[in-house]
């Protein structure tokens, strides 16, 4: 049995994202959409796994904006729907979101944003909570796994109560952590979709779904927010725990609540410090806050990443200062807590300990001294492309082409596993100096290419993954072609959204529901734009290098090279080796002139290691993926391959 469908009252270990998915199922979800992005992907993935049994429609959408639009259509037709994305996905969806909030919704519509404080799997530490305030949308933040489920379920009810979209915010340490969850009933009835639009313009339930008349609808929405506030005042998800009159009141939300609780037990301060855990963080319920802020003179706000809660609490506290008195606030503004990066129990304990003048316990000094000695021996373990990764081969080719061309060309990077190419010890071979958001590599490249008149005369390249291509690259590519920007655009097509775990995308003939669908061919799209297109296998070092060097030398506008090779971790490759590869020690030159360890020192496949005693390269068969690329780079033909098990 799929554990997402566990029976009523059973206790199940759920990933935070699975708890969100279960909550949606308990709420009677009909449509779920999303764009993959760590740490959000498992919500849609797990729902897709039960779609047939629960009669759901689940899709991986081309990007977050479209995901929200598809979900909104379901809501407009009276169904409950959910759109799921990572933090920066909300930025992508935000233009539609602004107008959606103005038009209102019908069936419960929940926007789930899984955010990544500390950027564990992101290239930004973005916060989407400010969208809640800016776009005037209720915001919920679960603090544990049970709440992740229960709050999600409630979010749908709330959305239907106010007939507008509700945002649920999770973070990596919630989405990707697991814990016990007690399940409730799954509904047995499902709704029928019905879209009405003949009613009066101001009636969002029967009239047209539009944002006009703007000011009138805006006013209406603000009235609804008052209802939200009132509901939040009574919400059981907001809780105070601790002594009636604590020496310090900690106001917190999300997984930070667990850190605070842990910190208090580390410091032995459970009887001195109180915790106000808020699950409804925008709009804040003023009376609830007034009651609790009164308890203490000192108030610490603990949250990730920006001081969103701190600001909003302070605004309320200043308005009620006459009644509750003037408080001393601690948090991000005064530096009690770091203004960037994720938190953990230790950081929180130091902050609380600092205010309360208590030190967390540590092991004896002699132990710490030994730890220090041991730490000096531990080499860093940097991220790198996997053994057999097509990106390593692709960047090897790119680096060669840039060197051969001789004009110091460079690559504008994009978001995917290949983003690692921007890091120095990873294996982009120092070719990729820019990295921003989805699709922006191509936009930047098009810009750089127009600067030759100002003296920047270097060949410009952009890379993107297959999934990124559909998400946001196409407009930038059209822009480059239209404005005759001379760029070499490389699609690193590894047949799936590898970084987030192989979700299908429009280039593949399969949908999230495993149905057969027509694949949208990248080459055809590029040709349609009018670009020159070639397709190659990055493992074919000579062939790929040749195309690239020719492209760089060729004047023109957009030249596209699609490098096609499946990810080493893809289901069809995992555990199988195309080749059995080993090093012939007699031929290996090692660190002598004539090679100087090209494979281990420069190429850097994690499976090709250096035996420093024998001064020879060795293939670690356990790690080797059997791609055979190293065979073609060894100058001595010392790396040999035999047919593998594929």
């Amino acid at each position, binding site marked *: 049995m799929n554990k997402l469908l566990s029976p009523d009252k059973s206790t199940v270990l759920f990933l935070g994202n699975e708890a969100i998915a279960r909550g949606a199922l308990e709420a009677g979800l009909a449509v779920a959409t999303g764009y993959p992005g760590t740490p959000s992907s498992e919500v849609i993935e797990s729902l897709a796994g039960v779609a047939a049994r629960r009669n759901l429609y689940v899709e991986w959408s081309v990007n977050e904006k479209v995901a929200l639009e598809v979900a909104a259509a379901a809501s407009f037709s009276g169904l409950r729907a959910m759109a799921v994305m990572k933090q920066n996905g909300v930025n992508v969806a935000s233009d539609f979101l602004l107008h959606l909030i103005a038009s209102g919704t019908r069936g419960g519509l929940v926007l789930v944003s899984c955010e990544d404080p500390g950027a564990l799997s992101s290239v930004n530490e973005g916060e989407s909570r400010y969208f809640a305030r800016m776009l005037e949308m209720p915001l919920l933040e679960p603090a544990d796994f049970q709440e992740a489920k229960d709050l999600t379920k409630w979010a749908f009810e709330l959305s239907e109560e106010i007939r507008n979209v509700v945002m649920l915010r999770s973070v990596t340490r919630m989405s990707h952590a697991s814990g016990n969850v007690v399940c409730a009933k799954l509904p047995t009835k499902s709704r029928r979709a019905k879209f009405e639009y003949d009613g009066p313009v101001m009636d969002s339930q029967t009239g047209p779904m539009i944002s006009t008349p703007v000011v009138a609808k805006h006013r209406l929405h603000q009235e609804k927010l008052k209802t939200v506030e009132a509901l939040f005042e009574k919400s059981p998800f907001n809780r105070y725990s601790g002594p009636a009159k604590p020496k310090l009141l900690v106001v917190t939300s999300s*997984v930070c609540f667990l850190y605070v609780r842990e910190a208090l037990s580390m410091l032995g301060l459970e009887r001195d410090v109180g915790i106000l855990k808020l699950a409804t963080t925008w709009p804040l319920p003023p009376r609830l806050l007034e009651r609790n802020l009164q308890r203490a003179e000192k108030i610490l706000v603990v949250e990730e990443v920006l001081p969103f809660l701190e600001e909003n609490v302070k605004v309320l506290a200043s308005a009620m200062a006459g009644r509750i008195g003037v408080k001393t606030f601690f948090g991000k503004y005064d530096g009690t807590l770091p203004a960037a990066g994720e938190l953990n129990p230790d950081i929180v304990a130091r902050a609380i300990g600092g205010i309360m003048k208590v030190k967390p316990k540590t092991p004896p000094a002699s132990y710490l001294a030994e730890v220090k000695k041991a730490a000096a021996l531990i080499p860093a373990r940097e991220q790198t492309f996997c053994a057999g990764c097509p990106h390593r081969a692709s960047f090897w080719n790119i680096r060669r082409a840039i060197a051969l061309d001789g004009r110091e060309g460079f690559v504008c990077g994009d978001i995917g596993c290949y983003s690692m190419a921007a890091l120095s010890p990873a294996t982009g071979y120092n070719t990729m100096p820019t990295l921003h958001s989805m699709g922006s590599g191509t936009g930047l490249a098009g810009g750089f290419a127009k600067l030759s008149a100002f003296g920047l005369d270097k060949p410009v390249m952009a890379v993107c993954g297959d999934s990124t291509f559909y998400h946001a690259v196409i407009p930038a590519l059209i822009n480059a072609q239209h404005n005759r920007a001379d760029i070499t655009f490389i699609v690193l097509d590894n047949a799936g959204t590898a970084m987030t775990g192989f979700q299908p995308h429009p280039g593949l003939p399969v949908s999230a529901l495993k149905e057969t669908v027509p694949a949208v061919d990248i080459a055809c799209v590029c040709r349609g734009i009018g670009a020159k297109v070639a397709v190659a296998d990055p493992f074919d070092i000579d062939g790929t290098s040749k195309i690239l060097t020719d492209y760089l030398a060729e004047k023109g506008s957009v030249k596209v090279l699609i490098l096609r090779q499946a990810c080493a971790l893809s289901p069809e490759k995992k555990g199988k080796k195309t080749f059995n590869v080993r090093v012939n020690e007699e031929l290996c030159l090692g660190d002598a002139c004539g090679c100087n360890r090209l494979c281990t020192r420069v190429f850097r496949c994690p499976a090709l290691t250096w035996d420093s005693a024998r001064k020879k390269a060795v293939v670690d068969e356990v790690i080797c993926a059997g791609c055979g690329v190293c065979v073609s780079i060894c100058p001595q033909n010392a790396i040999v391959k035999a047919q593998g098990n594929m």
Partner: protein
Amino acid sequence: MKKRKPAKTLNLILTGVGGQGNVMASRVLAGMLVDAGYVVTIGETFGMSQRGGSVMSHLRVSPDEVKSPQIPAWGADVIVALEPLEALRVLGVYGNPDVCVLSNTRPVYPIGVITGELGYPSREIIMEKFSLLAASAWMIDATDAGVRLGNPVLSNIVMIGALAETGLLPFNRGMFAKEIKKTLPPDKLSLNMKAFDEGRAMIRQESVALKNL
């Protein structure tokens, strides 16, 4: 060997290198413990950090309460490492004089070591540091056992078997068999049980215990 039963929270860190089956191992352990009535919290990092980087799962086994998904510094009771260097790395942040370590012997060299810029401590030095920094420590050739059984990926199950035998966590063979039935296809079960038993047998050999107080 004393048997630990968590009256209060037991903190276990499962560590290794991306791709070693860390996540699967922590889910199997947690699944057994949830069924046994504990409140379990796992904190893990995956995504980008999986790509050749260090990976860690924090497993918190509590009789009653959800815990922070991140264990506080110096707070590990048990460290299970699929890669020895990672055990040492975790000891440096979460170690304490009472911690127990169970580590695989097989190194996975970091890229900096492969390129020659960094050095990798010898097995002797790693063993010495385990003895200095842990109350008990075992090192077993789990990868080799996995390879012998036909797939190096089984090393994580070998480690789980070994962990069962150390008695550091409240689970046994029967619970393991029941747990993997939930997730693994039937044809994989007997091989996984073999790997589990292999791990148990390895712990019974005196030589693998570096220190057992």
